[in-house]
């Protein structure tokens, strides 16, 4: 029950891009075509779910017992950087095809605020291990949903006439704003109606 709540919250109600502004750089930068948006979306989902679990373990097995919670920011970002590197190496060895599809996006993920964001939000919400993992997957899927929707709209926009000052990123932001307006329909009341 709570897991369904977490999934709905992170995919729709608190969608990372459209309501929390986390992960905006790739949302604007890598959404020019659907194929790369899908690749980026899956790479981010993958890293986010593992990162949420790994940072939960660090927080609860290292930082809290040793009473050094103030080092949270440094350890989390290093953890994520190491994790991304490790995932990159692992995928390169185990599945060259997947590496070809995701490879170029992986280095970018370290500085994607969505990954550090989910780690910090899970810790601040006092989630347990499984809840953190589920939150990571859900937030990643929310990211995937938003970036894929955005890329399909931008592919259509390419063949339309856009006033010169609005071409490129400005129209992408405005499109994102209109998508965010639509996502305002998802709020806490929806969650209450669905699962009481």
């Amino acid at each position, binding site marked *: 029950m709570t897991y369904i709540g977490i999934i709905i919250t992170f995919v729709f109600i608190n969608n990372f891009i459209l309501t929390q502004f986390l992960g905006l750089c790739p949302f604007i930068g890598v959404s020019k075509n659907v194929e790369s948006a899908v690749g980026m979306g899956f790479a981010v989902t993958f890293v986010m779910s593992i990162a949420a679990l790994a940072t939960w373990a660090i927080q609860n097995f290292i930082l809290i017992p040793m009473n050094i919670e103030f080092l949270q920011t*440094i350890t989390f970002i290093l953890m994520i950087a190491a994790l991304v590197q490790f995932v990159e190496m692992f995928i390169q060895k185990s599945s060259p095809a997947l590496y070809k599809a995701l490879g170029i996006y992986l280095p970018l993920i370290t500085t994607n605020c969505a990954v550090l964001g989910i780690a*910090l939000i899970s810790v601040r919400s006092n989630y347990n291990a499984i809840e953190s993992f589920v939150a990571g997957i859900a937030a990643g899927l929310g990211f995937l949903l938003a970036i894929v929707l955005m890329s399909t709209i931008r592919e259509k926009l390419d063949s339309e006439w856009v006033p010169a000052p609005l071409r490129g990123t400005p129209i992408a932001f405005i499109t994102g704003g209109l998508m965010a307006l639509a996502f305002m329909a998802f709020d806490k009341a929806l969650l209450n109606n669905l699962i009481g």
Partner: protein
Amino acid sequence: MLKEFTKGIIKENPVFVLALGLCPALGVTSKVVNALGMGAGVIFVLLGSNIFVSLLKNFIPEKVRIPAYIVIIASFVTIVEMVMEAFIPSLYESLGVFVPLIVVNCVILGRAEAFANKNTIGASILDAFGMGIGFTLALIVIAFVREVLGAGTVSLVPIGSWDGVITIPGLSTSPARVFSLAAGALLVMGYLQALLKWSNMRKTEVKK
């Protein structure tokens, strides 16, 4: 020398022109005072990281430079976090998760990689101030538009008995609430960028 300072403010403005550091630029700009706090934090971290990166540029091995920069940046972010939590807890609360997220603000890592590791300490300091002020100004502009339209107020730093909030008559009773929400932030950002681009295009046309 002065060029290093002024370029970040308009010509290479990190938010509007380079499109870096977008998450905090939209996430914290529902109030002007939050934009000021975020700007101050970023200027401090940028200054610290630029100084240390330019001092250590000959000692950091090429291969591990990015992790090394991240450690330097994260240390300064931790200082900002602790100082802010201790002295201005209300600001710390309202900035929330965006304070530790200064670490992944691409403006800071971008300047370390593109400028500080190639230049002297003096130039790096000027560059940090210029970029930091440019970032802060961009945040203030976005926050000003959003707060005036979305809440009908302008909240500045409280001084003495004055709570720091300017209320605009008329707008504050029936504001366009959407501007203080997520959708408004993206729209304001898009239109501001378009405006800047339009004015640049006009300037180049006049020159011709």
